[in-house]
């Protein structure tokens, strides 16, 4: 009978181990541990019918938990109703950073505004928390002076510099900056069809000289800036 019970324990552990990551993050290995304790107990108190109920409970709950996790993710994604809005975290193994600007960690946040987006980039570089100046992207194709959020000139930006953005399709935003007819920098932001991946390609001239970046970001779910219910 010991072999029978240890076999049941093994099957139980495998089923419990198959539960979604999100479930296991909250419950830890509690579900697996509980099996070790309750399988002999259920066998003693309720016999085969009890064990059948226990396994049926696991087998039914498993797809339900996956459905629930999937529904929650979908809700988080569709909550904004905007493909870009949200927080994105760089996948450094899939990104090619310019050595001068390579961060250890990088995040981007797109906030939808009345006329476009407010873009904030932040991360960790050389062990220090860093954040870029928030940038407004208004993808209507019009050229506007580069100013800060209060409408004041931005230090380090040549006088007369202009910025403009376009959105050729719902998944793509292009932004550029120029001064006296010369391109200072340009970037393309493309969200994947499933809304989970943001690919950013930027090039231009920064404070440390020319740069070229191709970075891949994944959506942070749930969004740390949106209160969760």
């Amino acid at each position, binding site marked *: 009978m010991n072999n029978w019970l240890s076999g049941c324990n093994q099957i139980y552990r495998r089923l*419990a181990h198959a*539960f979604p990551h999100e*479930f296991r993050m*909250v*419950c*830890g290995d*509690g*579900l697996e*541990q*509980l*099996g070790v*304790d*309750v399988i002999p107990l259920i066998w003693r*108190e*309720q016999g085969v019918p*009890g064990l059948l*109920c*226990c396994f049926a*409970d*696991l087998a*039914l*709950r*498993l797809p*339900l*938990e996956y459905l629930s996790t999937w529904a929650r993710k979908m809700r988080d994604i569709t909550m904004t109703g905007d493909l870009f809005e949200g927080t994105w975290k760089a996948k450094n193994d899939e990104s090619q950073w310019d050595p001068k600007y390579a961060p250890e960690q990088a995040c981007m946040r797109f906030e939808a505004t009345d006329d476009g987006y407010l873009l904030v980039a932040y991360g960790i570089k050389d062990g220090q928390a860093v954040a870029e100046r928030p940038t407004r992207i208004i993808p209507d194709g019009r050229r506007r002076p580069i100013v800060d959020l209060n409408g004041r000139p931005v230090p380090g930006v040549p006088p007369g510099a202009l910025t403009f953005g376009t959105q050729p399709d719902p998944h793509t935003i292009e932004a550029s900056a120029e001064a006296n007819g010369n391109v200072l920098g340009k970037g393309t932001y493309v969200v994947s069809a499933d809304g989970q991946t943001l690919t950013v390609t930027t090039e231009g001239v920064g404070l440390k000289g020319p740069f070229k970046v191709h970075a891949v970001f994944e959506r942070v779910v749930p969004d740390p800036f949106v*209160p*969760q*219910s």
Partner: protein
Amino acid sequence: MPRKNPESFLPLKSNWFQILVSLVDGEQHGYGIMQEVWERTDGKVRLWPATLYGSLKRLIDNGLIVESGERPAPEFDDSRRRYYKLTSLGKRVVDLESQRLRDLVRILDAKRRREARS
């Protein structure tokens, strides 16, 4: 995080109520909750493991319970286990659900008394 209205949880799911009642005395781990419910209901209610942990996860998500950082005295502690305890919202919800059930029983008793008189 927006504060939730305890009334919005009523009527409370039976499994949730059983778990919350188990935690009224203090923190408890999953196995302890399962055994307590089994004994308290004279073996009528068995919270099977996946149902129990599914409910615990949802109770945590809804802010009714939290994982307790405090451990019992070493002689009573089982280091493998996670302990859970009621939040103030959880306590309030238990109180409201108990009151709701008491009111229901009072109505039922009143009806029976009327029936007996007639």
